[in-house]
């Protein structure tokens, strides 16, 4: 009984501590306004059925980036539903319990669907972009699908099984919502064949060989707006390009420990030189009077120069990068 009271007290303390956490302000960093995108909310052209892609500040974001064979930005996906003029965000997500009581790591992850105001939803994240739904998908139907799943109380699928829809993970929910609204189906894609990733996926118990990254739903042609803690979209996409570079360097002979560490409870952390690299990338164009827009090859070139400076050139026999070196557009 005393033990139970102690644990409860510790939980209460933790809750109280959470209540005092102040998050950095969320800023609108970009908006697309045209005939089809009239501002409706803080300058953003928000409609039901739009997708919100976010980038988490957690170390796990460095794990997620390595799992798909191909690089994708963003760690999480959700859907907007405008209700009485207010944009609400619906997503399904999980979190590790405070005390990991179960031996299998993912058995300690629980979650459910959430409904949160747009800015409240974005606040704990580094960055978010909003996209129109894919062609053919009806936004209202898309939003109705996630509202229905929320009403059903769908649980989070901590084993990321795309083929079993009794529980859902974030991109599975979004893929199902798009398809139910008349949009194109989204199939999982190959996961990273790197032996270290294969071993890690086996340990986690997630399906081998496939992944459905949140970034699959990002399409510059459907971009609506951006929010977050970065000062500009250029800074955000320089950070993403740094993660792209980490992915590019993660060849078959590399292992997770070159970027990450793990403690006795399975908690993953990023090695300091890796987080320093991505942080520096976010500042590459701070003093540039004419900073590149996302997708501009100058971002890739600058990040590769930074990586060569931090870790040596890649491939190892590549010529030293210089500002004049030709670059390939992403």
């Amino acid at each position, binding site marked *: 009984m005393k033990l139970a009271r*102690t644990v409860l007290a510790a939980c209460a303390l933790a809750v109280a501590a959470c209540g005092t956490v102040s998050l950095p302000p969320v800023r609108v960093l970009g908006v697309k306004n045209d005939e089809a995108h009239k501002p409706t909310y803080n300058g953003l052209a928000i409609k039901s059925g739009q997708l919100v892609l976010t980038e988490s500040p957690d170390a796990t974001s460095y794990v997620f980036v390595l799992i798909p064979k191909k690089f994708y930005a963003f760690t999480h996906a959700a859907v907007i539903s405008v209700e009485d003029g207010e944009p609400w965000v619906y997503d399904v997500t999980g979190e590790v319990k405070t005390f990991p009581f179960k031996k299998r790591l993912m058995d300690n992850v629980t979650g459910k669907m959430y409904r949160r105001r747009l800015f409240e939803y974005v606040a704990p994240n580094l960055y978010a972009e909003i996209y129109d739904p894919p062609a053919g998908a009806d936004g209202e139907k898309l939003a109705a699908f996630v509202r229905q799943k929320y009403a059903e109380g769908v649980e989070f699928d901590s084993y990321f099984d795309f083929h079993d829809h009794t529980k859902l993970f974030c991109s599975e929910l979004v893929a199902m919502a798009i398809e139910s609204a008349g949009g194109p189906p989204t199939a999982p894609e190959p996961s990273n064949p790197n032996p270290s990733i294969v071993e890690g996926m086996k340990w986690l118990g997630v399906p081998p060989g496939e992944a459905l990254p949140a970034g699959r739903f990002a399409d510059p042609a459907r971009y609506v707006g951006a929010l977050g803690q970065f000062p500009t979209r250029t800074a955000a996409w320089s950070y993403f390009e740094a993660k792209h570079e980490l992915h590019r360097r993660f060849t078959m002979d590399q292992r997770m420990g070159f970027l990450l560490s793990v403690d006795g409870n399975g908690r993953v952390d990023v090695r300091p030189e890796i987080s320093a690299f991505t942080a520096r990338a976010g500042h590459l164009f701070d003093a540039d009077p004419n900073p590149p827009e996302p997708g501009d090859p100058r971002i890739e070139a600058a990040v590769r120069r930074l990586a060569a400076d931090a870790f040596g050139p890649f491939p190892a026999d590549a010529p030293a990068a210089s500002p004049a070196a030709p670059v390939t557009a992403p």
Partner: protein
Amino acid sequence: MRRSFLAALLLAAAACVDVPDSVRAQFAGPGATDRSNYRPGRHGSAPPVEDPPAPKAAETAVTDAAAEPASDAAVEPAAEPPAAADAGGGVS
């Protein structure tokens, strides 16, 4: 009360997640012979660090204790990520 707290700590410690040796090995840092593409430092064929410009004679003549080497003055503070460490974004 203190005994209860210790018991809670022991319970938490005993309930550690099973991280098998094979997985722990995947999270080991790079050894001296590992070929890591993330080893810090400008090694391999990376361009050499440029030497700082030589100080002018007039500057070297100053004997003020406050004068610092030019190379130190050029060191930038460590970059910080834009997010607070305690910000917890959802990932799934």
